[in-house]
């Protein structure tokens, strides 16, 4: 009766098996660190909106200020999504019959709200306050990117906790004068010296907190 003997090639295979075994935990860590990160999963999320509203046209070309529509951004936690009324302020005059605006007109007439698809969503346990940031020299572009160049809005930043902390720990590169808050094209790194930015930090008493209670309640 013949015995089972391992063939010779198993000897050559073994180092690879061992190396794979050693790498597995490293891979698992990498998977958690990178694979499950919003940086991988969420950045670039670009849902189709019910109405093909182009920020590139309205903000980039026509030069609407962010606050024209997102009126509450400097007063409250939420940057309100505009009511249909806001659209119709202009579109009762301009492009009155555009088929793209059909749903807007319907909403306006029926009073039924528009259902926009949310692009930037924080988990329910994270409490972000827009007013606390825009009044302290953190511009829209830091989190939302160049919306003025986006035909369809997509998720620019991971909005992960680690990403928030990056700025909270090192705000120097992200502050700007309040006058430039909604100016998406304005780059503080080229427009201001580090000293000037530092003086802005002093001016607004920017002391970004790493306290848990700042965002979690």
């Amino acid at each position, binding site marked *: 009766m013949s*015995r*089972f*003997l*391992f063939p010779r090639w198993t000897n050559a295979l073994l180092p690879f098996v061992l190396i794979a075994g050693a790498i597995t935990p490293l891979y*698992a*860590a990498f998977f*958690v*660190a990178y694979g*499950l*990160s*919003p*940086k991988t999963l969420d950045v670039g999320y670009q849902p189709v909106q019910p109405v093909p509203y182009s920020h590139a046209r309205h903000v980039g070309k026509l030069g609407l200020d962010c606050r024209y529509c997102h009126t509450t951004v400097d007063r409250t936690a939420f940057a309100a999504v505009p009511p249909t009324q806001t659209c119709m302020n202009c579109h009762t005059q301009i492009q009155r019959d555009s088929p793209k605006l059909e749903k807007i007109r319907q909403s306006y007439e029926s009073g039924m709200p528009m259902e926009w698809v949310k692009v930037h969503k924080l988990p329910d346990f994270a409490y972000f306050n827009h007013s606390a940031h825009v009044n302290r020299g953190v511009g829209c572009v830091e989190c939302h990117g160049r919306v003025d160049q986006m035909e369809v809005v997509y998720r620019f930043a*991971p909005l*992960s*906790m*680690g*990403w928030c*902390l990056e700025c909270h720990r090192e705000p120097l590169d992200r502050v700007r004068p309040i006058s430039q808050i909604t100016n998406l094209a304005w780059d503080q790194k080229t427009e201001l010296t580090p000293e000037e930015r530092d003086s802005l930090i002093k001016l607004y008493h920017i002391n970004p907190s790493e306290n848990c209670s700042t965002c979690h309640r």
Partner: protein
Amino acid sequence: MSSAPQLTSQSATKGYIDCDNTQQPTSGRVPLVLNMHSFGEVTHQVCRVAENKPPFAWYVAFVISLSMVGFLGVCVTYLIFTGVGVWGLNNPVMWAYDITNFVFWVGIGHAGTLISAILFLFRQKWRTGINRFAEAMTIFAVICAGLFPGIHVGRVWLAYWLFPIPNSMDMWPQFRSPLLWDVFAVGTYFTVSTVFWYVGMIPDLATLRDRAKGKFQQFAYGLAAIGWRGSMRHWHRYEVAYLLLAALATPLVLSVHSVVSFDFAVSQVPGWHTTIFPPYFVAGAIFSGFAMVVSLAVPARQLFGLKDLITLRHLDNMNKIILLTGCMVGYAYSMEFFIAWYSGAMYEKFAFVNRAFGQYWWAYWIMVSCNVITPQLFWFKAVRTSIPLMFILSIFVNVGMWFERFVIIVTSLANDFLPSSWGDFIPTWVDIGTMVGAFGLFGVLFLLFCRYLPMIAIAEVKSVMPEANPHAHHASPHTDHAPAAEGSR
């Protein structure tokens, strides 16, 4: 067999009367292997357990254990899907059976590595008969132990946050927490014990491989033996590595239960906040571990016919250790009371008086009688060498040690600082099911081990046989040629 003392002629594998090899002979060495005269016989004696069909009792035990594991599965599934509220936990008793079982099993898991490592360092040769399955017991006990902290957390699916893995939240474990020390201590202990066990088993797996008849067995044991050929050059490094492992495992084994005791000692719950805990816990762990070894060895040697290898002398020695550690534990109990009284701290004093006379008095007195009073019987040699008595006493110790953890955890939590927040703990069927299920898990693992792996360290037993001495002045009766080899030293 130059040194065999007054042996009876009965073969241990057949009869029920054990050979008494517990007497220190006036001359020569104490036989740790009885009724066997060659290496081959030892090999055969151990390997046949793995090679033959197990006895009927094994199947019975296995089916029972397996159904207990099934119930454990039911309980754990229910627990994870519904919430830890299915246990009887409450505010203030936030830990009860879960951590009791955890500490209990970690304690059980102490004898194995202790026997392996510390007795190895002390050159106690009698360890060879019992170290393998004591180590196995350690690993299985640590698996059972690890189960509890794993499932007791409220959100099991996030338990990986206990490990320092880089993540998008930029959050890390908090290293001041004794629970995190636990993760590292128990994890290290499990890893090192497993490595130690496996390294010790490699030569024996090679033996099984070489004796295996079936192709699958040859493959499986072959894989497990990773090509061990008994090379003396390998043995050389092997022995160094084994010594190093023993030297590393010894402080480790002492540290593990110290760290487990920190879970309590570092907190400020009266009855937990005690500096005596680390040594007290370690002594208790050894105590319960040895009791568990006895509880397992007695039926195992009976069932698998290993009385010649696990002899009364082994059992006697273990019973002596149980007696010693039992006294240490008893000392710790009384010292706790003394310190509580001596401290004059109101809450501390109350915690201990309340243990003995408060709502959980029955648990306390079960603990004291099982851990302190009954082991005193081991002062008598007749008890130490009586198989039924030692079995019963070892079970008592296991029960007592479980209650010790229960008493420490539950009584301290139930009545801590503010009387308004006093509480009590009533276990639910899930509590009991999880506890019973853990015993089942342990049983299944242990039975599988008995069935498929060398239960006794074959190579090591051979090395302590008189025949193994290359410098012996006697010739083996089985060799027709006896070169008078001169030792180099």
